[in-house]
């Protein structure tokens, strides 16, 4: 596919540019393209690189430029040690894992059923439901957080991880259903019918035929849910009170505004919070790309 467009991207030049042969012009263009692309990539990735540099050695930019090797030879892990032993980071990390995994598992199970229903079954009200899901994305999270705080307080869910998981499931559901729906709509019609003729119920057909087929799409949806949950700030800030029950985002957010800023500790924490995301990201990257292509782009 890309090879087809390739030919059209490189304009033909019959007349030699500056008296160079066509091949020289071609390779010049290629070198230029690579130079531009990779410098842009370096620029984009610089903040991440800087996060790492400062986490092992609190250096300023000027010092770094003067001695680009020095930071590495003087590197130490005191920032990492501090963040793990001298702050509540380890609790936040654990809570974030619990809440994100819990919310992802529950939300994915519920959204698979919902997406199947909206994407695959025909009944009155399904399109209204699909539109409603998009409309929920127009609700300000903070407008829901205020009354939810009151409700949780009345029902003893305030300041509990269980409450937070419940909030996250509802908060991630609409987008998850929306993503999966596109996939189910594109599946061939006859799949369950064949299974149902063989004598299994609708539910049995879904379990035996549809679920295995949609595993990659479900995985993609789960990744997106995970990212939403891992990043969520407002609900955790409003619904959790004790530092030891807090998740990473509001917990680390308190570091700002403290008098003495230990940048090496802060960047060590920032990198630590990134690790689970990177693990998910690299293990399942192909799913992300595929899922986006199938979900967002209707073939």
């Amino acid at each position, binding site marked *: 596919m890309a090879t087809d467009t390739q030919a059209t991207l490189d304009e033909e030049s019959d007349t030699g540019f500056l008296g160079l042969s066509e091949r020289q012009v071609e390779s010049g263009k290629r070198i230029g393209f690579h130079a531009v692309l990779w410098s842009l990539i370096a620029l984009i990735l610089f903040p991440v690189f800087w996060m790492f540099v400062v986490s092992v050695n609190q250096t300023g930019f000027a010092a770094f430029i003067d001695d680009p090797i020095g930071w590495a030879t003087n590197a130490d892990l005191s920032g990492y040690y501090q963040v793990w032993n001298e702050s509540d980071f380890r609790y936040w990390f654990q809570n974030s894992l619990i809440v994100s995994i819990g919310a992802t598992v529950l939300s994915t199970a519920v959204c698979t059923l919902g997406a199947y229903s909206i994407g695959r079954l025909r009944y009155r009200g399904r399109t209204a439901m699909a539109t409603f899901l998009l409309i929920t994305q127009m609700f300000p999270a903070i407008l829901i957080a205020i009354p939810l705080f009151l409700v949780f307080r009345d029902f003893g869910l305030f300041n509990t991880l269980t409450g937070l998981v419940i909030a996250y499931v509802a908060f991630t559901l609409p987008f998850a259903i929306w993503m999966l729906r596109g996939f189910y709509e594109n599946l061939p019609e006859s799949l369950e019918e064949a299974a149902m003729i063989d004598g299994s119920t609708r539910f049995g057909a879904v379990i035996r035929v549809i679920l295995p087929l949609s595993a990659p799409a479900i995985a993609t949806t789960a990744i997106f849910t995970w990212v939403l949950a891992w990043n969520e700030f407002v609900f955790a800030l409003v619904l959790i009170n004790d530092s030891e029950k807090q998740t990473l985002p509001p917990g680390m957010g308190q570091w700002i505004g403290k008098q003495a800023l230990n940048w090496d500790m802060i960047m060590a924490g920032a990198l630590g919070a*990134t690790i689970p995301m990177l693990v998910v*990201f690299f293990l399942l990257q192909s799913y992300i790309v595929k899922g986006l292509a199938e979900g967002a782009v209707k073939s």
Partner: protein
Amino acid sequence: MSTNLEKLRQVELPREYYHWLSKESVWGWLFLLPSLLALGIVSVYPLTRGVYLSFFEYDGIADPEWVGLDHYAHIIGWTEFWIVMRNTLVWAFAAVVIMALIGLGFAIMLNREFRGRSIATTLLLLPWAVPFISIALNWRLMYNFELGPLNGFLRLTGISEGLPWIASSRYALFSVMLAWVWRNFPFFMLTFLAGMKGIPGDLYEAARVDGSSRLDSFRHITLPFLQPIVVVMTLLMSLWSLNHFTLIYVMTSGGPGNSSMVLPVYIYEHAFHYGNMGLASAIAVVMLLVMLTYGLIYLRLYREDIGAK
């Protein structure tokens, strides 16, 4: 673009097929039930209660006191509120336009065969794998006046003695926006790339034979093909941007003054710092109305592209 399958689905079916007690209907609602329950309890109910709360004076502890439309009357004539509203709209829409353009640029570059292409794609996706809180802290350091690489670079090249990025009311909103753009352009890049892959190559070939330039091909082939993706992504991303909290709260808390204050942070402060839950709910309801108006007009205009028939 509808496949044959979708065309078949749109065929008028016998009425009894849609009867609400038909087997398919029952299964449909049964499968929806868990989602409906979750959304009802944690989304729809709190939303209505929030609207209800906006007619009361309530600090979260004492009994709520009915004030009717007083909060709304107060909001309408409140200069500070309108500044925050303007910031929020600028923040969301400027960010989305910049993200889309950067994403498109990278998608065009990555849509050709070259060695190291998949590595380049992976590396460009990396910002998406950094959590908001890490981005907020990291960019605070990037902008740091003394130690930050940005000012370090400016001093090194002698452009200036350094700018007070997030510490100045002039640049604060833009500075935070830059971090938000950095995080989200990969989203556009990836979806554009997926869309470009779906464009038949012989279309370009035919255009070239007809003697149209590369720019023409891009305008008349690539862009129309990408339109549905642009439409859906822009809608989602602008709604998410309007709702975004973390970067602003952690990087500037809306300051200096209210120069980078946006509605979600503003509402949070009023509800949980000043203890005005009623007023905060009223502001949030106004925000809801703005988002709904924008979203529904958008849905109306681009019905076909979004596919929510």
